[in-house]
């Protein structure tokens, strides 16, 4: 299955030069719009307000419409589905779309909790001192399970578990009984392995990685009778993280 596309991609490599020129030609017209010439500086909006003049907390409590989100996400899945080789590939693409979002959300999350007195991050803390960066796995997972989920979906995730198997101490599971992203998606039978929450898995991966915890995150269907679209996010941390965890444990770092 992989052979012909591979071949074609080889072809494309050899033709890269000509192809490139043709693509750029084609894109010439629309590109004029968004890319400002570096020599001319920034294209400042007519009201003279750049992104730096907008307050980051303004949209804090604003919810986007569920319908528009569903539409947007649907388009994202469709877009990702183009040119894919299989389910894994599709999930990987969704994951890659989520990853940069996770990195950004991390900064935003911390910014919002530092700049306001309300403790959006740590439910227990009442002080207005800035929250700490997570140093241990558990703190990180709580951050994802609580604040991150609330930021995204207005509620916490449903469960947080650690692998019981001694062979995989680096595996953790975050469960969402009814992921928002999957609400309006019904997966065809022949693709029943697919879980579009791979997008959310990408977000989680971005958050983990941003905090310095290398991890692979994947989304898996674990339907129950009550929750047909129940999804488990499997977080697998890298060896270096586990090593560091041991050191921090010994040093008594919380």
């Amino acid at each position, binding site marked *: 299955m992989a052979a012909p596309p591979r071949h074609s991609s080889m072809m494309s490599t050899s033709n890269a030069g000509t192809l490139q020129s043709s693509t750029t030609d084609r894109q010439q017209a629309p590109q004029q719009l968004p890319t400002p010439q570096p020599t001319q500086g920034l294209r400042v909006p007519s009201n003279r307000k750049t992104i730096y003049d907008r307050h980051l907390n303004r949209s804090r409590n604003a919810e986007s419409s569920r319908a528009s989100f569903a539409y947007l996400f649907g388009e994202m899945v469709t877009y990702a589905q183009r040119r894919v080789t299989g389910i894994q590939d599709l999930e*990987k693409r969704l994951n890659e779309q989520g990853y940069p979002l996770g990195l950004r959300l991390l900064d935003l999350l911390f910014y919002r909790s530092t700049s306001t007195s309300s403790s959006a991050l740590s439910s227990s803390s009442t002080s207005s001192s800035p929250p700490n960066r997570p140093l241990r796995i558990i703190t990180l997972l709580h951050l994802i399970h609580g604040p991150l989920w609330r930021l995204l979906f207005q509620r916490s995730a449903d469960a947080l578990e650690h692998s019981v198997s001694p062979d995989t101490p680096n595996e953790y599971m975050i469960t969402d009984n009814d992921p928002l992203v999957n609400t309006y998606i019904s997966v065809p039978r022949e693709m029943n392995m697919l879980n579009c929450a791979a997008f959310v898995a990408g977000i989680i991966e971005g958050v983990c990685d941003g905090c310095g915890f290398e*991890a692979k995150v994947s989304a898996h269907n674990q339907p129950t009778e009550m929750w047909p679209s129940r999804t488990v996010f499997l977080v697998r941390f890298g060896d270096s993280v586990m090593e560091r965890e041991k050191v921090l444990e*010994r040093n008594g770092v919380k």
Partner: protein
Amino acid sequence: MTSPGDGTPVKPPPSFSPGPARATSKSRYPDGQEVTHSIDAELAEARSPSSPTPLSATTAELPIRSASPHARSVRSSTPQLARSSLGSPFDGRFDGSEDIRSLIIRAFSPTVTVHASEDTDELVRNKGFRGGFCELIRPFGETVPGKVIIRDSVGSSRAWEDYGVRFVDLKGFGRSPPGRDSARDSPLAQIEEVLEKQLNSAEGPIGSSVPSKDVLGFPATTPLCKLFLRQLLSSTSAAPHETFGHPVASVITISSRNPAPLETLRQLYAESNTGDKRLPEWVNQEYLRYYVLIHDEERDDITESTKLYDQMKRHFGLHCHLLRLRSSQCVVTDDDSVQVPQCEWLSPQRTVIRETLVDLGTDDTPYLFDSDATAIRSFIRELIVQSVIPFMENRVAVWNDQVASRRRGISGRFMSMSRRWAGFGSGSRSGIGGSSGSGSGNYDSDQHFYSPDSPEAILRKMADFAVMLRDWKLSASTYEMIRSDFGNDKAWKYHAAAHEMCAVSTLLNPMAMSAKIKLESVDQMFETACYSYLTRCSDPTHALRCLALAVELLKSRGGSATESAARWAMRVMDFGLVGSVGQILFMERVAACYASKTPAGGAKWGARRRKAGMWSLFAADQWLKLGKPNLASACVEEAERLYGEVLETDGIFPMPEMQTFVDNLRHAVKVEYLEARGFDARDEPATEDPLDTEETSEKLEKIDKRNHRRSLIGLPGQLDAGNLKMTATVRDSENSPNDDFERA
């Protein structure tokens, strides 16, 4: 050396290994996403054949998004083994600091004066030793063959392999008054001179060699640095405030040629107590006398000598020795000739003289008959093991019992306290600065010394003995006890020296391990010592010795002490105590201190690679300015090794100006190195400006490298990306970030 015409290929110094590749930007989320891509593809491959339930997917190899900064070390090509396997608390030990430690320990060796009769010196001079008997035995005294067993104050014994004593001619003892410091004669200037001489002697083992690496890849301490330290430690002459230079024993020697042996011995003994050979007032006269009869194997009758020797023993007790030497001079061509070992511990002044002799070619290394050498060795062993060490052990025990315990006991504490109070009461004139007006009165503030029989002087001597006997626990506690007394008496040199030695003993004591508070107090003691030496006594030599000891000993402690060590080394540079060569040596030391700090307890952090690398580069820069490209090259190489683990790609610094600096440095080192080798860089074809061509050629290489890497990494990603359209391939050609969007 190699001349240009030789045609021999010039081997570039090791640091010029291929011009490093240089990526334009190594962003974490690379535009091309090659890295992520290939790994994800790997994941996909790993997944696809596995069972349909992803939950049970194999986790044996968990691919990690390698863009994470923490995965960096995993990917780096440098062997990880070196870093992780050395996570023991004694890390510092691996980089030759054990060597340095031994050097420091041996620096505090007992001094033995030599008082030889005329006929003895005559005999020895015939053998080719112009300096007389002392010169003959001096090199042998520095290392006593075999193990020397020493008992400490609590009665446990320990054997030492590297024990030695310093022989000093009584005639020269204390003649040079300890206050003469004209600019030319100051020991510091002499040390600098020795270093420069050593550097300039092209054939010298130090000047030209690149420091050797030991098995573990840590750079051994450079020979030059050891030379510096040894010179520094032997630069201080006998002084009132410390008794390391004072004689512990005196060897009184006659030869079998002497017509009136016993009378001569008596006379020699008397001379050392009175008369013009008398030691300065501040030296304790209570030291061991050892009587030696030299038997001339070639001229005299051994039965006569044995008879005389028996007589000596009857008159002078057990501290006697019969040394049998041949009186004729030995030459290289003789069958059983042995070369006399080189003296390791010569004062800088003497080293300068020796070097000059070497330069003039007049210093022919003396040879001895094998039998003579053996006889001298066994004499020295007997002297030390049977007389000197027991004598010292005995003195320490007696003083400890009689003086120290009284001082340590309740009454002593009360005494010193009342003294302080009394001083405070009576000396209210003296203002706030001093807590006491005149102190104990044992201190002669006009001549600046304690009389040798005052408790302060005896305690100091006892502590010094303990140091020389390597009983650092006792010495540390004794210095600790007396160090504040000296402050009260305003005996600033004593004050400084006691603080210095207290810190040194604490650090040398292997038992007193690194409690954090200890370290702080040690730092504090060095600080005080340094301040007293420099500000109150203006004695830069001792201050430098103190700081150099601080650097080396703290470094050998490992852990957080190494940072302290680096700080002290920087202080030395700040104080301007050292000349231009010394300055660079200390830069190298700073680098070495930082390099020896390794991550503790399996953590990935805690090393100081970047700092070490930075200082190595600075040192390289300075060597280059001094015109020593070979040493600079060694530093550059060391820096590259250090940076190897922390840089994304070997030799590529993320910051542009740093990169420029390093590139220029590398290039300059290369050019100068080749020139020094007699290879004129300007002879190269089309090399009008060597810098330019170098730059371009390097750039070419860089581009090459990068393309190469891209093709390696990028390709599998592309292949696996399967039916990506043509646009996907375009992304690699770096045209615009938008491609990535299009691709996704």
